[in-house]
Structures are given as C-alpha cells and as structure tokens.
C-alpha cells in the first residue's frame, strides 16, 4: 500500500466538495480516477498535494499518517503532480526547470551548471524527447513542455505520481510515448494516479479505476472487470443515451471557402477547404500540425500572407477578429481559461463581450437586456451556476466552455470554428455540447471542428480534413475515415 485516503471530507463555503472519500493507491499500479466535473477529483488531488487541507479524514503514505500537508511537504514526501497546464518557468532553461523541481539545492550554494545540464540531458533522452537542455521553456511547444514536466517528475523520483489529464494536449504519437513512460514507471514500483476523461485510454493503461460522483467514491474496480458503459453509468448515475447523436443533415450552399491560404510565420501553406451550411468538417492532425494556427488566421488574429477567403461566395478581407465576426465567423478558442472566457468577470459580461454593440443604445450598455439574455442562455445551455452574476472563475471547466459557446452563439454566426471544445470536460457536458452541435448544423451553421479525440471527430464529422505540417494533406468522407488512415495521413504520408 503506497498512498491511502480515508474518509476525506472537504467543504467550500458550506458546499461539500468531498463527502467521505476513501481511496488507495498501490505501488506499481496505474490507478485511474474518473468522474464528472465537479465530482471532486481536483479537490482530492489538492488534498494529496497539500494545496488544500481536508476538513476531516486522513492521508497515509507508506502507512504513516500525513498531517499538516502542504505543497513543499508533499513534494519532499515524494508526491508529485503533473497538471494540464505545465507549471514551468518560461524564462528559464529546461535544465534549470528540472533542477528547481528537484529542489535539493541550498539557497546559498553555488549552482552546479554542468551537473544540471547533464542530468537534464539524461532524463530527456530517456523519455525520447529531442529537446536541448539549454533551450528556454518559452521557446517550447505545448507538447515539449509536457515532456519536460514528465522529466521533472522522473528527476524528483517521486513515489506517487498524479497525472491530471496528461494527454489533453497530446497527439497520438506523443500519447503512445507517454504510455510507454507510464508503464516503465509502473514497472519501477511507482504509484500513478491517472485522471482522464478519455475512457478508451484508461482501458489501455490503467489497472484499477475509481469513480467519483458528487463528492463520493461510488466504486473502485479492476479495469478488466468493467465496461465503458458501466463506468459511464457509475459516473452519471443513470443511463446516458447515445453519446454521439449524429443527425443526417443535407448540406447546403458553400459557406466558407479557403483557396491557397498561406500564413507565413506559422508555415501554413496552400490550404484549400470548403465547408457547406449544415456541414460539420472535422480538422484532424497531430498537435503542432497547424490547426489552431489556421483557425486563428481565419479569425483574423494573425494575418494571412497569401490566398483568399470566400464567405457565401463573396471574397472577404479579414484583418482582425472584428472583421471576421462581421463576416459571420465565430471562433471558440482552444485555451478556454485565457482566451475563451475572462475568468474575473461574471457570466453575463462574458456572454455579451463579443456583441456589446447589440446591447448598446447610443453607446450606453443596457444592463437589463444583458442580464435577461444571459439568463436565457444560462437556461438554454444549462449552466450550473447560482446566477448570471457568478464570476466565471468559480465555474467548472465544462460550464466555462458553455459560457464561451454562448458568447459566440449570440452572434448568430454563419460559420462556427470549435477548437478542442470538449477538452477536459466530463461525459455529461460533452454529450450536451454534441447535441448542441447537431442542432446548430440542423439550423444551417457550418461547423469546423478541430479535435484530437479520434472518436469525437469520427462520429461527428461529415468530412474530415487531415492536416500535417501546415498543409491539408487530404480530405476524407465519413465512410472512408478510420483512425489508422487518419493517423497515417497526419504523420505526413499522402494518399496516393
């Protein structure tokens, strides 16, 4: 027995986050932790890492009770966490980041640079990362940063490794790589607590799975003794209807057409794409293939160096998000917390931010109209929040995404670009968003769906465009599409 939690209780302002959760993690096991958003996973993790103190219950490590846990203490005890957003120092080098993580340098000691670099080199090679130890973290991509986080964890030689949605920003290749590392760590006797929403992954990598619901542990099972449907039922508490509702919508006229679009600084070249009204086009590809960059260029956040964009047949010049909005485009960004919503503002303000002009009379904001419209969307999309004045930062990830969606749906776009819309969102909310997409397609909205979740993109899209190294290498119809083919194309091998 490595790590135990017994009867953990935690409330925030009277609201119970954890009712009485008990869990155990064995050495040499990958223990998956799943549950809907708001079920208590992050709170439980915070209790383990010492970021938060429980109101009741205890933690035991190697059988010894851990009292007064705090981040520094947990670190020293060998409990390490890798979060979705890598907590790295952008201005410092990879080697330094790793060294600081190990935290065994006395404050007045002289820094031993050669050792730092050598150790970093060793670790990076071990995990198969081609990153220079002297590179500044700010110059690394998301994927590379994730790998550095893993190197950090290895360096610390933690006995307990908590991984929070580690594959959220990883493509297929990197996910496989990650799993290899995880298996190795398991073989070395580490205990890994693995949190993910991607059920298919769990069946690949986990030994046991614990399901949390509404602050309770509703069950721990051996992974081979359970099916995905059972897990979903445990998470949700009831049978969910079809997760992926795909209605057959006859596509209309061409809504968006890209011809020879290039975006110089991001090496996006010669993109040709057409999306019809009512059509959902999936954009698949590895992380780093340029999908988000393309979307941002379409939306006017970066300039297009060459090529033409046509909306409903008419050529348009998009030089700013405002131009894009006026042309009928809407973009729900990948980085929900920093680009999708403004955390410090209430729901109502976030919902109206892209369409302030419509809530203005003579330039004066009509707050009553704002509140009532926000309320309407709150009901329609079912935000789980006390009121529209609640600050967005207090909402769960799924609800934040709903707010982001509402913001853009208000603008009644002709073309909606969704960039990883269900990343880090629980099954229930995912389903709601899928239903929403279907309804929008029915209404004639053209949807470009960027996603790294294979099943999502396969079931929702009418057509799938595969992007690799800044170009669209192929477009597949729904019938021809399968995961292997997509992966092959994404890796850069064109269809003959």
């Amino acid at each position, binding site marked *: 027995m490595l790590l135990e939690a017994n009867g953990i209780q935690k409330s925030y302002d009277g609201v119970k986050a954890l009712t009485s959760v008990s869990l155990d993690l064995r050495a040499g096991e990958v223990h998956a932790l799943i549950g809907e958003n708001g079920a208590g996973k992050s709170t439980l993790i915070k209790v383990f890492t010492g970021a938060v103190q429980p109101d009741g219950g205890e933690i035991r490590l190697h059988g010894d009770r851990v009292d007064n846990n705090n981040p520094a203490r947990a670190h020293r005890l060998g409990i390490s966490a890798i979060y979705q957003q890598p907590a790295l120092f952008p201005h410092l080098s990879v080697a330094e980041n790793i060294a600081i993580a190990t935290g065994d340098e006395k404050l007045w000691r002289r820094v031993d640079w050669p050792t730092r670099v050598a150790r970093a080199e060793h670790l990076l090679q071990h995990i198969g990362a081609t990153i220079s130890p002297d590179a500044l973290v700010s110059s690394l991509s998301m994927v590379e940063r994730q790998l550095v986080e893993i190197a950090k964890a290895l360096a610390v030689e933690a006995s307990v490794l908590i991984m929070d949605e580690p594959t959220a920003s990883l493509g297929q290749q990197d996910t496989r790589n990650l799993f290899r590392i995880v298996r190795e760590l398991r073989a070395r006797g580490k205990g890994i607590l693995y949190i993910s929403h991607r059920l298919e992954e769990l069946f690949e990598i986990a030994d046991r799975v614990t399901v949390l619901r509404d602050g309770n542990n509703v069950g721990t099972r051996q992974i081979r003794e359970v099916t995905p449907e059972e897990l979903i039922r445990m998470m949700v508490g009831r049978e969910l209807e079809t997760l992926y509702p795909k209605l057959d919508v006859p596509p209309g006229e061409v809504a968006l057409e890209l011809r020879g679009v290039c975006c110089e600084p991001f090496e996006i070249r010669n993109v040709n794409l057409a999306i019809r009204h009512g059509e959902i086009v999936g954009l698949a590809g590895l992380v780093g293939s340029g999908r988000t960059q393309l979307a941002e260029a379409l939306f006017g956040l970066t300039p297009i160096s060459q090529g033409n964009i046509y909306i409903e047949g008419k050529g348009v010049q998009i030089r*700013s*998000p405002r131009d894009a909005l006026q042309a009928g485009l809407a*973009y729900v*960004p990948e980085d929900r917390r920093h680009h999708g919503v403004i*955390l410090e503002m209430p729901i109502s303000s976030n919902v109206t*931010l892209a369409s302030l002009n419509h809530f203005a009379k003579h330039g*004066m*904001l009509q707050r009553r109209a704002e509140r009532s419209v926000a309320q309407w969307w709150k009901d329609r999309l079912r935000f789980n929040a006390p009121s529209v004045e609640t600050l967005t930062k207090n909402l769960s990830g799924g609800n934040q995404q709903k707010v982001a969606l509402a913001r853009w749906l208000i603008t009644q776009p002709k073309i909606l670009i969704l960039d990883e819309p269900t990343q880090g969102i629980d099954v229930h909310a995912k389903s709601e968003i899928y239903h929403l997409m279907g309804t929008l397609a029915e209404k004639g909205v053209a949807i470009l769906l960027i996603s790294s979740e294979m099943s999502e993109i396969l079931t929702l899209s009418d057509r799938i465009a595969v992007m690799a190294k800044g170009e669209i290498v192929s477009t597949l119809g729904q019938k021809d599409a399968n995961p292997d083919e997509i992966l092959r194309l994404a890796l850069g091998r064109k269809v003959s």
Partner: protein
Amino acid sequence: MRTSRQEVVLGILIAFEIVLFSFTGQNFLSLSNFFECIRLSTEIGLIALAATPILISGGIDLSVGSMMGLCAVGFGAMWHDAHVPIVAASLFALALGLLGGALNGVLIAYLNLSPLIVTLGTYSLFRGVAEGITEGSKSYSGFPAKFLFIGQGYIGSVVPAQTIVLLLAIVTFWILLHKSIIGRALYAIGHSAEGTRYAAVPVSRRLALVYLLSGLSSGIAAIVYVAHLGQAKSDAGTGYELIAITAVVLGGTSISGGSGTIPGTLLGLAAIVLLENGLRLSAWPTEVAGILTGVLLISTILLQRLFERHSHAEKAVKRESRSRDIAMVGAMTLTLIAVAFYSIYRHHSMRKFAAQEENGRRRVTIGVMPKSKGDPYFISCRIGAEKAAADLGVDVIWDGPTGLDAAQQNEVVEGWITRHVDAISVSVENAASISTVLRKARARGIKVVAWDADAKPDARDYFINQATTQAIGFTLLDEAARVMHEKGDIAIITGALTAANQNLWISFIKARLENFPNMKLVSIRPSDDDRDKAFSEAQTISKVYPDVRVMIVISAPAVPGAAEAVKQSGRKDLNVIGLSLPNLCKPYVHDGEIEAVVLWNTEKLGYLAVGAPAALARGTFPVGKPTFDAGPLGMLQVDGSEIILGAPMIFRKDNIDAFNF
C-alpha cells in the same frame, strides 16, 4: 452599482478628517473653504479622472504632468508670440494634448510597448520639449481678464468657475467608464487583454482612446492651471502624475487593472485634498501632509488586503490570520485615535498661547513664506525670522512649498486667508501668478509684504528689497572681472532654468559684461539646485572650455559643488564667484577655490520679513515716512513702497569668518 468596501473606508476616513480638522483648523468648516478645496482639486481632478480608465485597463500614464507643462507653454507661445486669439490658442493647447496622447497611444496600444516605460520616456520628453522651447525660463503672462476668469473667477461670488469644468469631466468619465460599452471593454481588457482580443473587441483602439483622453485632459488641465495662476511656464503640473495616481489607487483602483470606479477616484481625491487643506489650516508644516499621504496609501492597501484575505481565505487559514488581522485593525484604530487626540491637544495649546494678551494687545499671527523650504538660503532667513518673532512677540507660521512651486505658494496663501492671519510675508516665486491671491488677502484686511522677490506692486503693501537685482548682477560680474583681470572666458552655473530671479541676475550679468570687451560668456548651465549636479557641470565646463577663468554660480547649493569640482581638478587658474551662504562656502573661500561670495545678510532679511508686517499689523509702521526703525537693524530707508536693506555684501577670506549663517 454596489458600493465597494474601499469606498466605505474612504467615506469613513473623509468623515474623520472633516471632524478632526473642524476642531483644529481655523475656518475649515466654512463654505468658502469648501469651494477653495474644489478650486484646488480641479486640475489634479481632471488628471486623476483620466488616469482612472487607464489604470483600469491595466496601464499607467506617468506623462500627464509633463504634458500639462507642454500644453501650457504651447498655449502661452501661441497667444503671446504668435498673437493668436485666445480661443484658438486654447484649442491649440488641446490639440497638443491630443497629439501627446496619440504618441503614448500608438506606442502602447498598437506597438504593445510597456506603458510604464513608454510614459516614463514621454514624461521626460514632454517636459524636455517644453523646457527646450522656452529655454527653460520663459514664462507667459498678462492674459486677458475674461480668460483668467476660468481659473480665478467666481460664479455667483461663491462657486469657483473651474467647478463647471470639473463637473463636466466627472460626468463624461463616469458615463464613459460606467455606462458605455467602451467602459465595459476597458474592464475586460484590464482583466485580460489577450482574452478580450479573442472576443473580437478592438483592443488596440480602446486602449489608444484612453491615452488620447488622458492627453486631452492634460491639455484642459493646463488651460485651467494657466488661468488659475495667470502664468504659463514649462514647469506646470510638476509632480501631478504621482498625486493623481495616489488618488486613484486610494480610491480602490487596482494597479493591475480590471477594477476601480470614478466615485472611488473622487473619494480618494477628496481624502487627499481635505488632508492637505486641513493640515494647512491647522498650521501643520506641509511635510506632514506628504508623510500622512504616504501613510494613508499604505493603510489603504493593508485594509484592502485584509478584506480580500478574509473573504477568500480558507477556514483554517482564517482562524490563524483572524487574530493577526484583528491586531492590525486594532493598531490602526488606536493610531488614528492617538493622532486625533494629539492634534486636538496641540491645537488647544496653540490656541491658549495665541489667546495670551500682551500689553493689552492680541497676539499677531504672521504667515511667512519662502520660495522653497529646502533651500539653505531660506533656511538662514528663517533664523532671522524666528528671532524677530521672539523679540516682537508675534506668532510666525513658516510654511511654503518644499521646492520651487508657484502653484503651491498660491495654495498656502489661500489657506492663510481662510485662517485669517494678520499679515502675510512672501518671497515670491512668480509675480503674475501670486498677485491675484495677494490682492484678495489685502481686500480682506490682511497686511501683505513681499521680501527677497517682489510681487506686483499693487498686490502688496511693501516690498523688502535686500538689494536690487541689478546691484547683485553687477557686483557678481565686477568681482569676476577683478579676479580674472578683465580678460578671459566666464561661465555661469544657475539653479533651475525656470527660476525667475536667477534669470534676472543673469540678464544683468550679461548687460554688465559689455563693460569688459575682453571677457566672454561661453556657457550657462543649470544645476537644478543640486550640489552633485553642479559638481558635474563645473567639472565638464572646465574641460570643454579650458579658457574659462571664473565660474559665476548663482544658486546657493550649487556653489560648494562647483568649488569642490575646482578643488578636485587641482587647477589654480580657475575660480568661483558665488551667490551663496557663507557657512556653505567657508572652507573653499579659505582654500582659494571661491574668490568671493556675494550675498546680503539673510538673517537681517528674515528678521525684517517679520518685523515689517508685524509693525503694519499693529499699526506702528510709519506710513509715508522715508525711514523705518527696524529695531536691532537700525534705521532703514523706505523708498515709496520699497524697504531697502542695503547693498550686497561681499564675503572674502578676510571677513567671512565673522559671519555664521
């Protein structure tokens, strides 16, 4: 809109100030004082109002004060030099403000440069251009009465004219920030500029707008300032940016952006203005206002943190920190109570003292103001003034700006009028700007005397002239000529380029130079009354102009600096002729770097600065007679409305030790 905790705290603080000062400050709680406060706060208020949306958007603008200087000078130049009608000149000033704001706006909003650094640069640039255009010293005055009404007039003889401007600005900014969609965008930008960009809000445009407005506000403030003081000079608005930011932050606006309100800023402004005004009326020295403002700012932050921690903290942390927080609040409350008690006690003891009857006469109070409290020259005058106060049995309030500041001189006099002192005795920084308020004092029956530097003749009863500026200028040059045997180059090191009397001396030195055809003036450098800077300037002059034989240094703190430079250079063929205090120069005079120090007896000057108004207040002054018995100073000549102390004194090696000031 919910009233934030900060605003409540400020409200309590303002109430506390009002109650306290109504006890300790004379005539604090009067309608006229209230309106005076509004007058004082208009210019700062305009800038603080414009600063609020900037801070809310996550930026900062340090260039506002300098912008005022540039707009003031542009206005003056247009009207005075180019003979442009006053309305057009005003529009030009506003256009300048917009231009400056646009510069900031483009650099910050479109090029994404740091607002702190950009406005730090424009803070230097604008002030520098203003100084460059006017050669630092030129000041424009003589504006038509209709224009001056904006800054000095009263509507219905009670409400100052600029109140309208302030009210308009308040309404405009309130609508912009709290009602319009632009305001909403600004708050969003303050929370996250990047996130707001993704929301298709034209972030750059919005940011450029607030900096543009800030420039415009500075332009308007400049016009009000010029109308208020009656003069347009490049030093207008010095230091205003920091006061404005203090007011805004005090009002609850966060430096990091995303929060803040116009009412909050107004409350913060009120707190500062009332503090300064109340302290002045309670006869506290002006430094205390500065110190307390600093304390206020820190206390505000402490309180803000207290509230934040209390609401966000976890229960466990709350338990621990609660006792610490209670201790902090307790300490602050006790401090406030202690301050209140001490102030009231002090006030009472002063009142008792003042109420003492002496030979059946009520004790006379005289407000004596130097140009700058920090200048050693005036510090030595103060010694004489205090001696006179003791000898004559009068109460002297010695107060004034800490640096050269014509606007603050006005404020101090206004305070004394409200306090109803018996006499005011002023060393005038700028005649045009202070004369209006001096006339007001005379109209209220207060005796007014100018000393060291004169006001407009009709604004004062008498002027105490230590020596004419011409005599001083001539003496300085004559001494220089004597030392260098009328042959060679000379250089002048002055104080501030904007100091009026120093520039007068320079003009007389230049005039006298015509008597010496073999002598040439090669350079005039400012030292900003800073010893270290004078040192550097003198060092460099001696290298760049090797033929300079004498440096004439006409700022008291600068003389020892220049002399030290000569000493460290080891040169024996270079000398300093200075206008300074003997004590500062003694070692160098004995050593030989300084050949002569030209001055007059500053203690006598200070003595007379109290003696003359005291006599006037008591009615013992021999009006119309050609002489005045100045007690220990002997019989002094009275020439019309000028009392003449004597000729300049020259301190040399042989006589300097006899003097100790």
